[in-house]
């Protein structure tokens, strides 16, 4: 901590944070926050460290397998097939190519969020050695997990694009909106990952709960159902403004896959889909999504930073 004290005049070369050169003063802290500006400056200065750490993780995860990096695409594709079969069985009739495109776009982005969250929640405990031996802004660790999740997600975009063309949705300039929507989702995920990374230090069985929690979250988010379907289901519709993934993923899947239009009933449950209609970005969702992302990131990151100096004692 560099909190000024009345007993010591501030030296000219006084360091701004515990990570920068100069004179450092360490004093007791009571779960307070360090000065955020120098903290984030030091964080930015170590970005290459975070990136190197992330690449290490990715290389280690897949080098030993036969398909190697290909698993990043094979995994979610198999997963989408599983869900397609599931929906086929439950609805009692085969779903069309459009539905598969919708399902893929939703699943891939959902697994980006849950993957970043689950890896992020483990990373502080996992990198305990680093924490015990080096002083650096600890927020780098969950951000590294989110970076890994982004790098894993990007190759799957190629699959999404293929099915986008196969599904019969017309390709318009509206797809550009996917960039700010994705940015919102990344920020949201970073906030979640930071929050749970700090919680995991105190409650190690958090990582046991999380997969079940994310599974339920998947079912109430616009992944298996479309936004229109959720809005037609009274119980799920109540969750619309409580579930941050509703605006975030809803916007994503709608812009990506469009919306089928039926002669009667709600698509895609109706018998015959008339045509696929492109859906522009929902500005209401874009705004609410941004609000969710900013609030969750601010709370998650500040909570993490306020606890991070306690990690070395708790690991």
């Amino acid at each position, binding site marked *: 901590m560099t909190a000024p004290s009345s007993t010591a005049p501030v030296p000219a070369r006084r360091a701004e944070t515990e990570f920068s050169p100069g004179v450092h003063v*360490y*004093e*007791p802290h009571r779960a307070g926050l360090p000065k955020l500006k120098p903290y984030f400056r030091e964080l930015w200065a170590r970005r290459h460290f975070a990136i190197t750490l992330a690449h290490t993780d990715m290389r*280690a995860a897949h080098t030993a397998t036969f398909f190697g990096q290909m698993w990043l695409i094979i995994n979610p594709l198999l997963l989408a097939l599983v869900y397609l079969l599931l929906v086929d069985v439950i609805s009692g009739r085969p779903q069309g190519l459009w539905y598969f495109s919708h399902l893929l776009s939703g699943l891939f982005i959902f697994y980006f969020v849950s993957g970043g969250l689950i890896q992020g929640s483990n990373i502080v405990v996992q990198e305990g050695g680093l924490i*015990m031996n080096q002083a650096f802004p600890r927020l780098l660790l969950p951000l590294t997990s989110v970076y890994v999740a982004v790098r894993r997600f990007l190759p799957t975009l190629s699959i999404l694009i293929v099915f986008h063309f196969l599904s019969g949705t017309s390709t318009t300039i509206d797809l550009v909106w996917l960039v700010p929507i994705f940015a919102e989702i990344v920020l949201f995920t970073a906030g979640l990952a930071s929050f749970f990374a700090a919680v995991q230090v105190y409650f190690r069985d*958090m990582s046991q709960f999380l997969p079940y929690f994310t599974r339920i979250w998947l079912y109430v988010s616009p992944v298996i159902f479309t936004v229109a379907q959720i809005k037609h289901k009274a119980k799920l519709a109540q969750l619309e403004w409580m579930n941050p993934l509703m605006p975030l993923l809803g916007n994503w899947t709608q812009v990506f896959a469009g919306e089928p239009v039926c002669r009667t009933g709600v698509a895609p449950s109706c018998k015959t889909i008339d045509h696929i209609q492109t859906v522009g970005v929902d500005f209401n969702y874009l705004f609410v999504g941004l609000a969710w992302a900013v609030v969750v990131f601010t709370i998650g990151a500040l909570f993490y930073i306020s606890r991070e100096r306690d990690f*070395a004692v708790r690991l």
Partner: protein
Amino acid sequence: MPSVFDDDLAISCQNVSITYRTTFEKIPTFKSAIVRLGRGERIVRLVPAVKDLSFDLLHGNVLGIIGANGAGKSTLLRAIAGILPPTEGRIMVNGKVSTLLSLGVGFDRRLTGRQNITLGGLASGLSRPEIKERAEKIIDFAELPEGFIDMPMRTYSAGMGGRLAFSVAVHLEPDILLIDEALSAGDAKFKEKAAAKMAELCGQARTIVLVSHGLGAILEMCNDAIWMDKGNLMMRGSPDDVADAYTDFLGVSRTARSTMEDV
């Protein structure tokens, strides 16, 4: 206690106490938290690792810290490195700190030695070109067997890992180097080389703090020593005097001292 921070001063600890709060269970879980809540218990054990410790150290010195296991030596070192915050008191550190703590520089065993040099350098805030510039010096100094630098570190022996860790720590050009028991891994020849490098660093007005429970290293390399016991500072003085008092305290004969590495 200096009221103005002097440029010559490397480290100043003022009434530093460090207390760990540990719960009874080794790994904290929800279940145990709920069970404890249900019983209305709050089991937090306070472990005072360092108690009201004060000392100043000027630049250009090698300070040895000796003491039995659990004396608080490593905790103090981590606090000076800025990893653990003190519970009470204040620590002032003047300069760039490089640490060589018991777990290495946080090396990743899946990576090659060369990649670990990059990772360690980046973590301490160096830029890629700065690391590249130093990498050859680090590799030369560590004297690993042919080809090992590009092999994963899990294939290294403990001694090889320790040598690379030492080499990285000294070549990060720290103003203050903190070393915890790290020299026990190297062989006699490397220890000699390490001692020479440390003497060179001190010649450049840099500061080294060496933690060991082996008196040999302290007597050979340090010009100043502290003896800690159960978190208390027992004595500060020349390494010879401190070692004498420490061996008297332990009841080990003085002749045995020079031959035994781990007293």
